[in-house]
């Protein structure tokens, strides 16, 4: 059995090497063909180009060579007044090389005009991103069965995560609309003190209620590019980062909100902790919309874009529905839900992938 396997691998390697050798040979021959095509074009015998290049365009050129070959072929068709063939070749070129750009200064007007009759920009971008967030809590009104005046209640922020899928579409040279689907986890701690448990008569000195919310969100954002879109070669270093600012809204739907207690009493012993889902307990509102402001960059990496940035989300609704569960939280821990807004700051990185569908634009 093992022998058979070995023979199979050897055969596979031989086949691969032979294939690679043929491939290389074809490529060398085609490199020469391209060189010849340049000469033929320069000498003006452009009616010979189509036949000269066709085999190598189908198979044999490297990507860069194929782009150049198409360019020569398109120019030949243009100057031979073969408009249909020129259109076909341009479409093939744009499908083959999404990143093909013309040079406004150096290219002939005929080529520029033809190029501009095609849709050559991406129709939309899609991508994904992820990052870390931290939450800030604003107390509107405090609630609880402990001594509110002496409780020294405070909120502290903890680290959370965000992941999302996004889709973007450009409008004009500066405006981009983006929509994304997010899964958000944010956590914050609520600390308070001074409470006597009625069942045990033990004084609890400090309680920390840690709340972790899992939400799904969908957002819509309008982005404004700080520099208008233009040819890549004419951008300076900062322009190449494509910085933008964005304003938008996110509709969050809180799927669960787990509250966990860490309690210590004056005797130093730690009573049983407790965990409760505030959604099940109908304490939290499930809908929590935010207004977002974002600053970010999109840096081209080949045909893709790397994106990074920071976003501040402002929660403008009170997320508390009921203040007491009338059960363990109230009875054992003396905890009542404060009226609060939550805001968050997110840092993220991600990838944007353009989708090109080149086509001839009708005039």
């Amino acid at each position: 059995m093992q022998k058979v396997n070995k023979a199979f691998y050897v055969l596979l390697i031989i086949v691969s090497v032979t294939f690679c050798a043929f491939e290389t040979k074809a490529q060398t021959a085609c490199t020469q063909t391209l060189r010849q095509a340049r000469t033929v074009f320069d000498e003006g015998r452009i009616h010979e180009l189509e036949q000269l290049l066709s085999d190598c365009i189908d198979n044999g050129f490297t990507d860069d060579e194929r782009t150049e070959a198409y360019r020569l072929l398109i120019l030949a068709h243009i100057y031979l007044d073969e408009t249909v063939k020129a259109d076909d070749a341009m479409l093939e070129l744009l499908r083959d090389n999404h990143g093909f750009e013309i040079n406004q200064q150096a290219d002939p007007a005929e080529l520029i005009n033809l190029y501009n009759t095609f849709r050559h920009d991406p129709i939309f971008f899609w991508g994904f991103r992820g990052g870390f967030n931290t939450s800030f809590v604003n107390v509107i009104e405090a609630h609880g069965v402990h001594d509110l005046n002496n409780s020294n209640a405070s909120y502290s922020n903890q680290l959370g995560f965000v992941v999302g899928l996004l889709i973007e579409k450009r409008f004009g040279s500066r405006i981009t609309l983006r929509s994304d689907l997010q899964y958000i986890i944010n956590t914050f701690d609520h600390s308070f003190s001074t409470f006597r448990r009625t069942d045990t008569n033990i004084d609890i000195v400090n309680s920390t209620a840690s709340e972790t919310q899992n939400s799904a969100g969908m957002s819509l954002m309008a982005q404004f590019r700080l520099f208008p879109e233009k040819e890549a070669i004419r951008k300076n270093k900062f322009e190449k980062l494509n910085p933008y600012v964005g304003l938008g809204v996110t509709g969050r739907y809180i799927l669960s909100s787990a509250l966990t207690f860490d309690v210590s009493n004056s005797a130093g012993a730690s009573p049983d902790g407790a965990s409760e889902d505030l959604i099940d307990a109908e304490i939290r509102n499930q809908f929590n919309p935010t207004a977002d402001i974002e600053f970010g960059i999109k840096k081209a990496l080949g045909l893709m874009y790397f994106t990074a940035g920071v976003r501040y989300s402002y929660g403008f609704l009170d997320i508390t529905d009921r203040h007491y569960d009338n059960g363990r939280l109230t009875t054992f821990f003396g905890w009542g839900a404060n009226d609060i807004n939550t805001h968050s700051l997110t840092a993220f990185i991600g990838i944007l992938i353009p989708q090109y569908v080149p086509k001839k634009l009708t005039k």
Partner: protein
Amino acid sequence: MSEILEDISPSSSSNDKKVVDNPFPGLRPFKIEESHLFFGREGQSDEVLLKLSKHRFVGVIGPSGSGKSSFIYCGVLPILYGGFLTDTSPDWEVVVTRPGAGPIENLAESIVSRDPAYIAADEEEKKIKKTIINTLLRSSSLGLVEAVLQSRRSTDKNYLILVDQFEELFRFKDSDDSTAVNETLAFVNLLIEAINYSDVPIYVAITMRSDFIGDCAQFPDLTKKINDSHYLIPQMTRDQKRRAVEGPVAVGDAQIAQRLVQQLLNDLGDSTDQLPILQHALMRTWGYWSKYRDRQDEPLDIKHYEAIGTMSEALSMHANEAYDELTDDQKLICESIFKAITEKRGENFGIRRPTRLGEIAAIADVSEEEVIEVIDKFRDPSRSLLTPAYHVPLNAKSMIDISHESLMRIWVRLKNWVDDEADAVQMYLRLSEAAAMYQVGKAGLWRPPDLQLALNWQAKHRPTLVWGQRYHPAFERTMIFLEYSKKEFETEQRIKELQAKRRLRNARIVALVLAAATVISLGFLVYAFYQKTIADKARVEAVDNAKLAEKNAAEAEAQRAAAEKQREIAIQREADAIKAEAAARESEKKAIAALSEAERQKLRAEQGEEAAKESAEKARIAQKAAEEQRKIADTQKEAAQKAKEAADKLRMLAIGKSMAIKSTQLRNEQATLKGLLAQQAYIFNSENGGDQYDNDIFNGLYYAIKELGDPLVESLGGHEKGIRAVASSTTGNNIFSADTQGKILKWSLKGEHRVADTIINSRLYHLIRSIDVSSDNSKLVAGGEFPQVAGTTYVEIFDVNNNQKRTISGFEKEVWNVIITPDDRAFFTLDNDGKSIKRSDFNNVSQVAATSVRLNDIALSNDGKYIVGAGNNGKIYLYDGNKNYAESVIYDNGTKVLNIAISNDNVIGLGDERGLIKVFKLFGTTSPTRLVGHSSPIEDLKFSSDGRFLASASRDKTVRLWNRSNYTAQPIKLDDHPDWVFTVAFSPDNSQVLAGTKEEIVRAWPTDIEVMADKICGKIDENMTQDEWDIYVADNIDYEKTCEQHAKGK
């Protein structure tokens, strides 16, 4: 090369001292004054003297290194001087000469330096005297007799002409120089006549290497003399050799150990050419012994002999000593010298190759003085490794040679050099061969490893022109080939590097994406652990809840009953579903039927594809036939050119043309000379009735005035993209040009200056392909690729005087051609992809002809009645205005016709895809005239309105001006264009032709050569020098001033 021996007078103190110091001469032969040191050939002299006395001639012959010269100098001459030769006067004068590279000149010098008056004279006089004797010797075969008679001081004096190293006559002969053969013959004749002249007792003795005896056979008289009287020098016996070793030692008042003598004789062996090596070893041994002997009376012994490296090493060590004395730069020169004067033959066999000093200097690429400095180290009297001997002054013509062949065998460094040189030559020859093959297209450029080897070779040997031409004449081509190979390879490497960088970048992107994903995943992991702890706590709580669950179970049972009812409803639904499935199956059957229909359609499509492939094959065969036709056309073109060259035998015209061509080849720095050559060429051409539109004269003048910065030939700027339309009317003074970005300029011609007015500025999507102006220059019509409105496009009408624009729509797709009628009332257009000819009266548009095939161009006859069209199928169509523009075929060109023009006298010119132009009379009966010249398709044709020219523009980047009165003459070729030429037009007065190119340049060319000729003299301030005249015109044509107002150049 030559020397004079005074009467034997061993009184020369410096020589005396040397002889006492070291009794062995080394590699050089014994001198006359060293006869007391010459041992081993006692008794052999008599026979030689006897033969000399009897025949007045003797040839001493022997192998290389057998001691011929020493024998004559020390064995024969002393006896001669002693007066022992009977039958003749005892008063002898001996003239010793060596032929070297100039045998007669050297003989003259030998004779003249015998004269005491000559020795006393100053340099100038010496030179004169020498020249007189030299001339005397060359004047007749009795020259030697006369020279001797002139310098004879007493009547009973005998003369012995001793020609040492006679074989140099053959060895140093320069095979490239035909006079050398004659000089050898003259030299031999001088000697023979001198012997035969009975009134003056002149005797001749020669020493010659036996392997050159065959070369003497070409001179019958000399052969006879040698046959009558020669002496083959015998090899020395062991005893004689012993005397040759011991004798000088004894003279030097020293002893030599017997075992050393035995050792020397054993080392010497039987070979004949080892005597100089023995002498050299003994000289070195003596030198070492005299310096390092332990005590005064110590004999020369084996230890001294071994210290100098024995016979097998002594020469090598000695040569290395000389080499080590050199500076680093001189070492390199030394290497070049020895490489130049040796040559490798066969596997392990180096031979000497005497070379002129001048050539060596050129090979080493240093001055002759530097070479002489190095050579002097090696021909120092104590070394004598190179010849000529130390006292002979060196100049560029001196032949440098190795004094003894064995140096090449023994000196290891030289051996390596010889091998190294052989390798270099081999590499050079391979490279030359490859360059030659490359030139004829039989081989490609070099690539590694060959390329790398060749580059190493170049870096190491730094080959010079002179060096290269010794082995292969095409040195420059070879080096250019190498350079070109290198550049080509470097370019390829650079492209590969760029590709590698791009791959690396892509890999980085992937890595970045993966890294980002990893970070996010890690975040999730942390979070998962965190959740797990929460879950553990929840589990405990769940146990409590279990009890609660049991209570709920009962309630659940009740729910189950309700569910049962639901199940029954579900069963009912299932039955419904089965019915729906049956319906679906029916649909599937229909789909299968549709599929089989589709398969049938596909089969038919494949059959169609097969037929298409067959058609393609036929097309390819047809193309091959066309190619063959083209080849035939090419050969015909060559034949025509040759015939023309044969006819063009008028010398002045030829000189004029060649000067014009030379002027174009001069470098930019030589602008003045360039102008003078072009101007003089023009003068020759016009004075000798040459073609007034001669291409070479034209180009000479054009490039000269361009170089001198004349505004006449400046190009017309102002456009930003390629130009596809230029036009002018036949009146006024304006030319119009339009580019592919919609800009139109109006040029006013003010003498040679041109001023542009902008009619309209650049606009996107306004690609102008054709313009025409009315005869009064007031209206301009422009057509091309303009935006379409509701499926139709428009042409633009400009009021030139106030730059007003209006449009007339009603045209289909793009307008390729616009022609205003001669009466200015209407214009014709070609549009709709060449399928429609339309007419507009500047307000309305109507179609006058829908063409059966695509036309690439149309032209309108001067009376406005006929339109001719260039068909894409190669046919020429006529649209007759008298017959409502009915279509008829008037000519079939066979090849796609791209352009057509019609002259005022109704001559049609057409230009096709092969670059061929044909001219024929409309309604004429003669077959068309073919104008061959362009190598690429024609882009535009225009007849000048004065009937002189037909201008053709082509994608081969040239415009040609064909002289209509003589189509067979070579057209003026205007080739200073950066890219394809799209369009041409003549200025209204036909004095200039304007060419619009694919780049944003319009070039202006004068059509009259005279206009350019008048300008040059004003731009320069002197005439040619006599030298320049001799070089570029001819030295047997009288100088004349090119520009009368300037002085002759100095």
